[in-house]
């Protein structure tokens, strides 16, 4: 008899198995879809690959997309290390954007760049923190499920942002277009020559390294990992779980807030529609694709960024809907969970391995 049993020891390279199977499954699903659309999958994948790698320009767009994804990926990974689900990176990103734009446009419009940029950075992080602390407090004090609160608060954040740029913050000289005025040049992030890559990208990489060392080398990080792995052990050790929920969610929100800042100050230069395009949700996939390892987050973000840029190529070259990349993204996530599940179980071919209940 074939029996599926849980592994006593997790597979050694569980993360790698999961990531590999995720990519493999996504590729296979893609083949099916392309074939169904009457396109040779090989042609399609070649087009995607060319679109991403054919020029410096094309690849730079991948990094542009990867920048917010790294931040939101880190946001989700931070919370998930403690088994908290922050589905609200989207809303925290929006608040980061609002705080960044507000600081640059209304609080300190006249400051020099060297002073204004750090202020905008801090403000955007604070925006994310404020928004993430609402679900964090509800979870810590009243045990309200953070999955629901973080998710639902996204819609509140987006609607409030729209209220701002349709209403009080609308550019008076904008011919009625929805959006704030352009932020002062001093608040615009420096870009690398000829591309749209801003210093937000290296900042994101720095944050990944920072989070890695924070989790590995600090007392706080150790406690967070213990709580994430085994609540009962944390209770036995006397760790302050409530406090950690707050600090972890705050850090998570700060990362997401910074994503909003890099979008507002690095790409759009204003608050407008197009800020909330789902990077917060994509961050969930990035984080799990990276196996919650902060150092792997940038690579997962670049992979996903390439998928998006490649998907756009499908549209312009082959006339296929660019939303195919969304399907591939979904397939990645399913593949990931399939891989993780597979890695946790083993198949045995007898009936002797029953586990006592």
């Amino acid at each position, binding site marked *: 008899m074939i029996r599926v049993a849980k592994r006593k020891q997790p597979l050694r390279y569980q993360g790698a198995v999961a990531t590999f199977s995720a990519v493999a499954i996504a590729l296979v699903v893609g083949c099916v879809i392309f074939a169904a659309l009457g396109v040779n999958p090989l042609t399609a994948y070649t087009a995607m690959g060319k679109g991403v790698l054919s020029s410096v320009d094309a690849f730079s767009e991948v990094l542009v997309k990867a920048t917010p994804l790294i931040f939101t990926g880190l946001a989700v990974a931070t919370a998930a290390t403690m088994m908290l689900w922050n589905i609200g990176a989207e809303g925290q990103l929006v608040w980061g954007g609002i705080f960044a734009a507000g600081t640059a446009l209304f609080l300190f419009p006249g400051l020099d760049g060297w002073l204004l940029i750090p202020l905008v950075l801090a403000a955007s992080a604070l925006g994310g923190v404020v928004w993430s602390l609402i679900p964090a407090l509800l979870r810590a004090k009243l045990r309200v499920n953070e999955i629901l609160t973080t998710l639902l608060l996204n819609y509140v954040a987006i609607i409030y942002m729209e209220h701002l740029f349709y209403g009080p913050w609308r550019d008076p000289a904008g011919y009625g277009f929805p959006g704030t005025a352009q932020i002062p040049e001093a608040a615009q992030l420096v870009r690398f020559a000829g591309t749209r890559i801003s210093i937000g990208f290296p900042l994101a990489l720095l944050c990944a390294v920072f989070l890695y060392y924070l989790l590995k080398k*600090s007392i706080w*990080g150790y406690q967070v990992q213990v709580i994430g792995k085994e609540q009962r052990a944390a209770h036995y050790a006397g760790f302050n779980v409530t406090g950690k929920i707050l600090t972890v969610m705050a850090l998570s929100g700060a990362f997401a807030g910074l994503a909003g800042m890099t979008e507002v100050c690095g790409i759009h230069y204003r608050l407008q529609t197009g800020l909330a395009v789902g990077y917060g949700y994509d961050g969930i996939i990035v984080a799990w694709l990276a196996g919650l390892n902060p150092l792997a987050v940038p690579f997962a973000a670049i992979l996903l960024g390439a998928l998006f840029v490649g998907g756009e190529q499908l549209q312009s070259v082959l006339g296929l809907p660019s939303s195919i990349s969304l399907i591939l993204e979904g397939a990645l996530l399913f593949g990931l969970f399939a891989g993780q599940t597979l890695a946790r179980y083993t198949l045995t071919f007898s009936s002797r391995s029953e586990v*006592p209940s």
Partner: protein
Amino acid sequence: MSDPVISLRGLSKRFGPVWANREVDLDLFPGRVHALLGENGAGKSTLMSILAGRYGADKGTLMMHGQEVTFSSPAKALDHGIGMVYQRFMLIESMSVADNLALTVGKKYGRRGVDYEIRQTAEQYGLAVDPEKRIFELSMGERQRVEIIKLLMLDAEVLIFDEPTSVLTPPEVDALFVIIDRLRGEGKTIVLITHKLEEVLKLADDISIMRKGRLIISEPIDARQMSRQQLARLMVGRDVVLRVDKKEVALGETVLALDGFSGDSPSGGPSFNEVTFEIRKGEIFSIIGVAGNGQTGLVSAIAGLSRAGAGTITFDGTSYTAREWAMASAAEIAYVPEDRYQSGSIGSMSIAENFGLTRLQAYRSGLAGLLLDREKMAADGRRAIGEHNIKVESSEASAGSLSGGNLQKVILARELTRKAKLFIAEQPTQGLDISATEDIWQALLECREKAGVLLVTGDLKEVLSLSDRIGVIFNGRILEIIDAHDSDRVDRVGLLMAGVRS
């Protein structure tokens, strides 16, 4: 006596390396209540789960009315008329009694017929229950009755009760006994899994006692000719005391004193009442009792992990109320918890990292003490591996890869390095082999030279080998505190564990 309904012959069941049941022969007769006694982990539940179709046996045969049968699932066992009332009821709380029963017996009677049958069955066996009520509105006793009705509606001949009184209030227990008596009168075969002697003496016709997977009394014996004392002795066994190298240690100051300490178990388990004792440096004070007599909640409160309801606690010369103690519990107490896998260690972390669990303060370094000194952690891990003879290549191996004994040594080593004044060890050798057990015993004996040791266990042999003084806990109360050198009184520990005072 008539022919047996059920005969088990040479039944064996293994979980991994452990034999839960070994060569068990058992006969069950109609119209009789058969009590199956034994300590926790003796293999009672496993044996009955095999009978009820939850597990398959590895060896041996199961005969019903002389015919060999095998059950691949509980449903198959039920088809043959064998049903079990589990400790955790298998009912859907948001649905009514009738709907719940319709789920299992609806096919037989049709949804309409179910209501009628419930009333019929309830009346026949005196099982008062309102079919329209939803499960969550019912008391535990009523829920249990629903389970019994379920089995009867399926024409069960053999009804197995797994610790049926553990969730009931005393009046509900009496009501259950009346029901069981009635079932017996109707010719049903009843199996009662229990470790409570009064129940056995009140109800049972036949008794089997299990110890370590074996039936130590392999033929049913007539309950009416046995006294509580005899039963208690048979159940606990007369274990040989292993000679351990126990040095004389001079008693030092009082480390811990409890006075009228009372409270509930954190997870809603049995409470403890008016517990009073003291522990001095240089001694091992043991609390022994059958599992589920309040010791879990007591230890948790002493360790400061949960708050006791009343009483005072004096630690290292300072007195605290129950409330103050829960707040002040940063006090240095070393504690080896019962659950070494989920509480005492983290399987996916390395041995070195597991040292951080309770010793984090010692590993603070750099940047205002915010950083973790991994070097020192690894050094402690390596030293523990050497000193305690832990079989593993390096301190970077994951704790989950260790055997139970080696893992327990890691936890013990970690707690010893805290150099606390009070050392609590809870079921420290449960499930360990002899050599690991001896190593841990030796470490506890050495530990008492520097600290007061509180040993909480259900293992009589362990208590007799290590203790200086023994407190027997029963029903949340310390019945007696006995000096380990007083051999006359020590003989009574087993009886006291079973609640026998005189």
